[in-house]
């Protein structure tokens, strides 16, 4: 029997006690052990960005971290973005600006943008494009994702001032 570890994870403000093999990626642990299937797995080697989540507020590839490594850290996934029934400004902007089509890459893009905007709420268009270059989308052609992030950032700044 593979050696399993008992690990407690803090995800979206909730505590999950899981028993996992060290070799399991954080993405797999989130999906299979925590039941949080909003985080998607694309390439499983750090290229596509679909599995991006926030660990201690930083966007990271959850396929390139092992679940056991997340013990003692705070994890935020796409399930933790909306406030109840109210969409996060990023989610709202993706919806309104056709920033998604099939939706597979969307959780990764949302968490990537959420983390980057947390670090720098005033990203220039060049900064936004540079950050978004890390994730792949095969539907939208990216322009609407850039636009959605730009408009969401504006909305988030306005709310922060209010």
């Amino acid at each position, binding site marked *: 029997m593979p050696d399993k570890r008992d690990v407690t994870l803090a995800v979206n403000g909730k505590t999950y006690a899981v028993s996992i093999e060290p070799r399991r990626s954080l993405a797999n642990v989130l999906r299979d052990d925590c039941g949080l299937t909003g985080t998607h797995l694309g390439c499983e*080697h750090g290229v596509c960005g679909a599995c991006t989540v926030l660990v201690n507020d*930083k*966007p990271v590839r959850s396929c390139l971290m092992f679940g056991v490594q997340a013990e003692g850290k705070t994890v935020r996934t796409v399930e933790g973005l909306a406030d109840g029934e109210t969409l996060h400004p990023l989610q709202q902007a993706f919806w309104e600006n056709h920033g998604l089509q099939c939706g597979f890459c969307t959780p990764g893009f949302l968490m*990537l943008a959420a983390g980057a905007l947390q670090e720098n709420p005033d990203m220039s268009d060049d900064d936004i494009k*540079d950050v978004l270059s*890390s994730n792949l989308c095969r539907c939208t052609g990216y322009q609407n994702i850039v636009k959605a992030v730009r408009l969401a950032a504006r909305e988030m700044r306005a709310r922060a001032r209010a």
Partner: protein
Amino acid sequence: MKAAAFDYLRPAGLGEALALLATHKDDCKILAGGQSLVPAMNFRLARPAILIDINDLDELDYLRADADQLKIGALTRHAAFHRPVVEGPLGTLLAKVVRHIAHYPIRQRGTFAGSLSHADPASEWCLVATTLRAEMVAKSARGERVIAASDFFHGTFTTALEPDEILAEIRLPLMTPDWRVGFYEFSRRAGDFALGMAVAATRVEDGTIREARLAVGGVADRAIRLGLLEDQLVGKPASLAIIDAIAREARGMIEPNGDIHASPEYRRDLIAASVKRALTEALA
């Protein structure tokens, strides 16, 4: 695409980590950022029996500048360099270069020391360490030794580190404000591996080049310092003519390998273009 089973060890201090390395040597790998190691494990190109996760070793997460060196601890992430970490040309150069290392989320996890230990031929930090003649501090249960950059890189994914050693600290020489720095990298898409890149640094007095550093990366099994060309730059007037001459020379000094990404001929052209652009920036 799942890693093979391994035993996971998470030491709480450097002493404990070094003891584990001394015990397990070749059977273990150090896990820091994991942004190169974990993909290799997911592909099962790497199957270490044991992972020693050093992410709890806060004592290795530091950036310190003393009178003439910047000291970078083993757990310093790439993202720490997004803004200049020291005043002057060195901080500027590091902030310029870091933007070319993979992508934003990768830079949140990956470490400076991890890049050097991994020794990818297309690594930007390996190029910087080579250009600036960094010193590497390797620690093991046996003690500590300092390795010059020129002795550290042995080839693709190969360094002077022994199986029981950890690259604990990198020391980069600080540059006085009269140094100017330049960096140019060509890759097909943002964040891709470099097909060719160059770092240049010069100190110019009254229009004459007094000191020069020049190296290229991504075109051989390791970064290559162009010492001969550094010597040729010294004493010359800072001019477009010297930039062109040096770029031409650099083109003929390296025999790059061809692969699916670029032919040797194309890479030689990239060397000339990269050297020219890096030098132009450093002599502006």
